[in-house]
């Protein structure tokens, strides 16, 4: 097959054209190139520092298909390693999270300390090894790049990447809006939820940024909220949507918008206001004092952030951290957590958890209506007689270079922005995903 990028992404800004070929969601060669180029060839989100809080604590994850171990040593230094024994390749750490002064490979008992150094090759002296073997390092292979942005840990399986600060760029400030919600930092609420869907990973990428689907895909959830609002009692949880109408059809005026950044990072947002329905409300005054009202107000806004390609932080119905892990072109795994500022009150934490479960869980009342829609898309992508999708066109004449008055409130300088009333539902923010995608995939395909 000789695919060209221009066969996959039709990007002609001067003509007002941006189209995506359905093949990018189904083609095996595209998927293989994505794994090598995006997930195993650049910065990937690995986890939060708080997942390995103390000496010798670790957690495991994947960079694309590659098993990764993130380990804190005795002195507290965090490192990333390939989670694979140099001897026969077996996965070393098998649990998602734990504490290990020493990792002993269960296959032939080679052992490694919490700094990744080899501590023993079993029966080394009797092994009749050559000098060549002795010259090799028998420790765990470190990730070529590993870096920490405010507790968000990233790694790269290749060394030839920009520094993390450059990769995140201005989008790093949006991670700071999460990190700065508590002086003590962030934590993941105990209880991790994993689900899969039979569709391409980029559907998740897009859906997080998709304001257009909310009233179409989630009317049953909206009806539940209405029922609760009519008859509030202690047995139902207050919804953050109740106090906001930015998404309603009859709303007038600017209700939110989108920002896009270099390297494929994207935010869509809506005005929520500083209201008691948001668990952070108990800190509203304190946060304004510490960070200024502009930044405080932004912490309360609805924000769906994607750090390309595998991290999403959604602060809307509650607060969710998602890690996207593509398994095949038509199968994706999502690892999800409730992310929360440390030290919040018991009442705020309870409210955050209840809001989360109803909206975000695959056992809740909203996410399944998204993921089933992804699966319907995946089925529909077989209709290649009409290859070009038309879902990237809303907002084309509203997209402006640079930021706007809302960005200015937190000194944020996006590449492009859209200010929107509730019905605009920008789709040009996806362009940022696919421009970064095309730029990095160009090496795998012809231009």
């Amino acid at each position, binding site marked *: 097959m000789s695919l060209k990028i221009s066969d996959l992404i039709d990007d002609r800004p001067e003509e007002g054209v941006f189209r995506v070929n359905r093949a990018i969601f189904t083609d095996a060669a595209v998927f293989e190139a994505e794994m090598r180029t995006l997930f195993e060839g650049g910065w990937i989100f690995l986890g939060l520092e708080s997942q390995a809080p103390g000496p010798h604590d670790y957690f495991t994850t994947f960079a694309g298909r590659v098993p990764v171990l993130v380990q804190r040593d005795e002195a507290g230094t965090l490192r990333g390693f390939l989670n694979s024994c140099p001897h026969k390749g077996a996965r070393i750490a098998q649990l998602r999270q734990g504490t290990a002064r020493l990792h002993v490979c269960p296959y032939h008992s080679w052992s490694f300390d919490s700094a990744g150094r080899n501590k023993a090759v079993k029966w080394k002296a009797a092994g009749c090894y050559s000098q060549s073997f002795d010259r090799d390092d028998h420790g765990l292979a470190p990730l070529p790049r590993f870096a920490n942005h405010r507790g968000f840990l990233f790694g790269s399986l290749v060394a030839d990447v920009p520094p993390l600060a450059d990769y995140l760029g201005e989008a790093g400030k949006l991670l700071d809006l999460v990190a700065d919600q508590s002086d003590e930092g962030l934590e993941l609420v105990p209880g991790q*939820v994993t689900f899969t869907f039979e569709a391409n990973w980029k559907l998740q990428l897009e859906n997080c940024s998709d304001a257009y689907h909310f009233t179409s895909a989630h*009317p049953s959830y909206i009806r539940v909220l209405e029922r609760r609002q009519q*008859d509030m009692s202690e047995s139902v949880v207050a919804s953050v949507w109740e106090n906001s109408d930015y998404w309603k059809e009859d709303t007038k005026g600017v209700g939110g918008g989108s920002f896009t950044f270099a390297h494929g990072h994207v935010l869509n947002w809506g005005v929520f206001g500083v209201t008691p329905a948001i668990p952070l409300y108990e800190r509203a005054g304190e946060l304004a004092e510490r960070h200024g009202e502009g930044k405080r107000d932004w912490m309360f806004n609805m924000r769906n952030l994607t750090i390309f390609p595998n991290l999403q932080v959604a602060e809307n119905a509650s607060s969710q951290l998602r890690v996207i892990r593509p398994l095949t072109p038509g199968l994706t795994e999502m690892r999800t957590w409730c992310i929360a500022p440390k030290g919040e009150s018991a009442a705020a934490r309870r409210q955050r958890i209840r809001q989360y479960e109803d909206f975000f869980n*695959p056992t809740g009342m909203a996410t399944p209506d998204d993921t089933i829609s992804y699966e319907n898309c995946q089925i529909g992508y077989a209709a290649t007689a009409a290859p070009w999708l038309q879902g990237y066109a809303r907002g084309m004449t509203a997209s402006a270079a640079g930021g706007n008055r809302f960005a200015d409130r937190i000194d944020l300088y996006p590449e492009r922005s859209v200010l929107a009333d509730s019905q605009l539902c920008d789709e040009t923010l996806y362009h940022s995903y696919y421009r970064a995608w095309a730029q990095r995939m160009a090496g795998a395909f012809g231009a």
Partner: protein
Amino acid sequence: MSAVLTIREAEELLYREALLIDSGRFAEWLELFTPDAEFWMPAWRDETTPTEDPERELSLIYYKGRRNLEDRVMRLTSGLSTASSPLPRTVHQVTNVLVTSAGGDTGEVSAAFTCHRFDVRMDRTHCFFGRYEYRLVQAGGLWRIARKKILLLNDTVPTVLDITAI
């Protein structure tokens, strides 16, 4: 109805509940619960430990109050949820029923379950399994569910898992 919960009464209630869900008789299913019933499916903290405190830890589902189950049923049957239209076909098999404590007007019951689910739309079958813990109370001359805890053992969810398949 006897003064103290018998295993026969417990089995009768659990089997009836399964039948009502599997045959889509949701209004009758809701009637089995007390108005302040707790309905709880914990998440897993790690490979071996489910979450234990719904106030401080995440659950897959946690509700206090039957009206929340009424909301779920409304959503399932509203025709407004893509994921719920059409509803999957299910059969619950409830086994290993034990009355773990009984006295006065309250009884605690444990059981095991498997639920086979056929997702008609996608032509795929899943099996979910785990354990139930119930607190049953006598109300209006009937045993009703004051608490149902569902410990789901295979918790990697294939796309969707609703109250009809647990």
